[in-house]
């Protein structure tokens, strides 16, 4: 395993992006950071800028305007960058599938490494998803 990847998995810094979600998934993500679930014990920390982050965490059905911003953020992220989709909207657009403003799902815009379903997913589900993702990257190398 390369040194960068080992460092990434030891303490992944997370950048949280809401692409037009209803904020419920965002609340659950923030709940992960609070002392009750305390995702920081896995070394995860919310980064203020994508340029400092290893993980791009996306919630919400990407609409026409935020899809451009999402692509721009992904291009700015230092590679290797892991993309995690949280919630039904970012997985398959949920009820916004026929919506005039959500033409393409998230995984057609950027490559997605982990999907965490739920509307909204519980903090336990988010933690389990992220831990599985770390195991997958470790195992595949």
């Amino acid at each position: 395993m390369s040194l960068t990847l080992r460092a990434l998995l030891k303490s992944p810094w997370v950048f949280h992006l809401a692409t037009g979600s209803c904020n419920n998934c965002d609340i659950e993500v923030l709940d992960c950071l609070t002392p009750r679930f305390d995702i920081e014990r896995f070394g995860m920390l919310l980064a203020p800028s994508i340029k400092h982050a290893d993980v791009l965490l996306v919630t919400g059905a990407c609409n026409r305007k935020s899809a451009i911003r999402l692509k721009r953020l992904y291009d700015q992220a230092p590679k290797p960058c892991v993309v995690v989709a949280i919630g039904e909207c970012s997985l398959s657009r949920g009820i916004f599938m026929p919506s005039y403003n959500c033409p393409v799902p998230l995984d057609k815009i950027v490559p997605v490494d982990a999907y965490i379903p739920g509307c909204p997913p519980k903090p336990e589900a988010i933690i389990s998803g992220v831990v599985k993702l770390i195991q997958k990257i470790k195992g595949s190398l």
Partner: protein
Amino acid sequence: MTREEIINDLKERFKEDIIDVFDKSSRRVYIEIKPEALVKVASYIFKDLKARFNIASGVDTRLHIEILYHFTLEYINLLISLRVKLNREKPEIDSLAPSFKGANWIEREMHELLGINFKGHPDLRRLLLAPEWPKGVYPLRCDYEEWDKNAIRDRGV
């Protein structure tokens, strides 16, 4: 003034312009007016009755394009909704934005989503839709059809 006094005052003052008054409940009244008289009635309710302009909502009802302007009279706990019905072929109405600033953005939004032309609006630009959205396509109309050939409309499973 009490609730009844205000409703009777409006009925008396604008009896030429009011088409219908629907007394929904103790806290809500719908007043349908002629589109030409909107600025006059709305300014009276806003400036003289000291109402708060909550929001306006546009609906495409297939027969007309309707706009509801919601005003709250907080001192008597009454919500007045002014209803105007516009011609579906060419929806046009005078803008309220010159009278009060709060109407500016919601009129821009109704303009882009329903295609209502607000005459006299200071700045009728787009508010929410993406720049590549074609002109003359209004997503909240009943007869809206998909224009984007690249859109994917399945779950991908």
